[in-house]
């Protein structure tokens, strides 16, 4: 067994499919005049996301971190006037390993200036239908999905109702920390598996899960995050925002993230204050989305596990 660990875990056929997929993606954006750009993989700043850990590195005698996503670099380029752009390359996340995760993975992230979340959702659907040859696209709000599957309004349900629903649906070794954790549990255990085979675009997330999306009122007057996710066959593929461009609000969110990390005993690393400066200088109104290319390849080639599409996953890296 150990003697075999020099071998790739993916077949040569899967690696050929990967090469073809990367070429198709580049073709897709070339046709749309979206420019490919590179941003650093080694950064002096870490992510502040409450649920993502940066992998630390040492570089030229000082602390550095492997990028958990190209987002900050791309947004600094947008503020500098680069226009529509994309990154297709590696991203790194500490501790994320399993059938659908590898700590080092390939991410596609792109930005469209002047677009909102719904315009970008359409483009995500176009790319996915093209690559996966799927025509069935379903678009619904986070609220509609919860109402349909659980008869529960995720925005107005009380914390107690949410906790009760979680208790009914699954067995936990802990009590949910807050309503956001209850919603994540319901989403990953109950709703994702029920999504079906086609492309599902889910939009208008709860305001407390806005991350870097702007928050606006929906038709019912509820404050919702202008954030969306794309799923195929219950597999989470992409996460996008109508981007926050307000620098003061950006700074508040960084600080709130750091507070959460402090309270929960996570590491506190230097955050990307240069993003705040970039927003202050003026980032164009835009929508952006990040997509997991390894998972897209799993779907395109009918592979069950991420190991089958990465030559050397972490156990062999």
């Amino acid at each position, binding site marked *: 067994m150990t003697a075999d660990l020099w071998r790739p875990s993916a077949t040569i056929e899967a690696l050929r499919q990967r090469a073809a997929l990367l070429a198709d993606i580049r073709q897709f954006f070339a046709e749309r005049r979206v420019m490919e750009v590179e941003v650093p993989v080694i950064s002096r700043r870490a992510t502040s*996301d409450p*649920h993502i850990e940066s992998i630390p590195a040492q570089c030229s005698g000082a602390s550095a971190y492997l990028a958990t996503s190209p987002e900050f670099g791309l947004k600094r380029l947008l503020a500098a006037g680069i226009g529509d752009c994309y990154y297709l390359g590696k991203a790194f996340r500490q*501790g*994320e*390993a*399993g*059938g*659908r*995760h590898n700590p080092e993975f390939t991410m596609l992230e792109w930005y469209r200036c002047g677009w909102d979340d719904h315009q970008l959702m359409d483009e995500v659907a176009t790319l996915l239908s093209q690559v996966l040859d799927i025509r069935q696209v379903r678009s619904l709000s986070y609220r509609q999905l919860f109402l349909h599957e659980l008869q529960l309004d995720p925005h107005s349900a009380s914390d107690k109702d949410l906790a009760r629903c979680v208790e009914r649906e*699954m*067995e*936990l*070794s*802990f009590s949910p*920390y807050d309503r*956001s*954790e209850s919603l*994540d*549990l319901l*989403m*990953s*255990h109950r709703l994702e598996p029920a999504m079906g085979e086609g492309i599902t675009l889910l939009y208008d997330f709860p305001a407390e*899960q806005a*991350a870097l999306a702007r928050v606006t009122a929906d038709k019912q007057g509820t404050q919702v995050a202008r*954030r969306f*996710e794309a799923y195929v066959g219950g597999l*989470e593929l992409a*996460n996008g925002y109508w981007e926050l461009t307000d620098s003061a609000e950006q700074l508040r969110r960084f600080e709130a993230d750091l507070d959460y990390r402090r309270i929960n005993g996570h590491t506190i690393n230097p955050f990307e204050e240069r993003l705040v400066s970039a927003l202050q200088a003026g980032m164009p109104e835009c929508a952006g989305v*990040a997509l997991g290319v390894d998972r897209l390849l799993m779907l395109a080639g009918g592979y069950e596990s991420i190991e089958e599409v990465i030559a050397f996953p972490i156990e062999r890296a």
Partner: protein
Amino acid sequence: MANYSTNEFKGGLKVMLDGDPCSIVENEFVKPGKGQAFNRVKLRNLKTGRVWERTFRSGESLEAADVMDREMEYLYNDGEFYHFMEPETFEQHQASTDAVGDAAKWLKEQDICTVTLYNGAPLAVTPPNHVILEITDTDPGLRGDTAQGGTKPATLATGAVVKVPLFLEIGETIKVDTRTGEYLGRAKED
């Protein structure tokens, strides 16, 4: 005992859950891109055999269970306990009817079984995958009927009842798969 964190969870790992020793059957890392990471774990309770599904926060840990599998020779049943011996040390262990469970119907003296020890005492017994046993009761054989055709029930020396081809008779020895209870063939004369 040591503790195992969720990132060490894997199939076959023995851990304590709600006071019972369990074996991890399946461990799935679940993480919405922007959400909390969880481990959805399936565990088999080694006492009851029941499979549980339980979700942990990634980073939580469970106490290791003092459980180990040993190859042992089955000696005899004294009416209350089943006695086993470790072939190298000659150390003997007695297992209760509960611990032996369904394996009882396949236990033949001197066969090598897997005995699962929990805190040093037998918790479960797994018979060999293939056993050779004598037919002690079955309907008379039908002469002229060869391998094809129907089956009939046959009681074996250990009490197990399996389906065998019609031509087999009392006193013959056969080979059986204990995982499926399936008849594999006549045992060769040694």
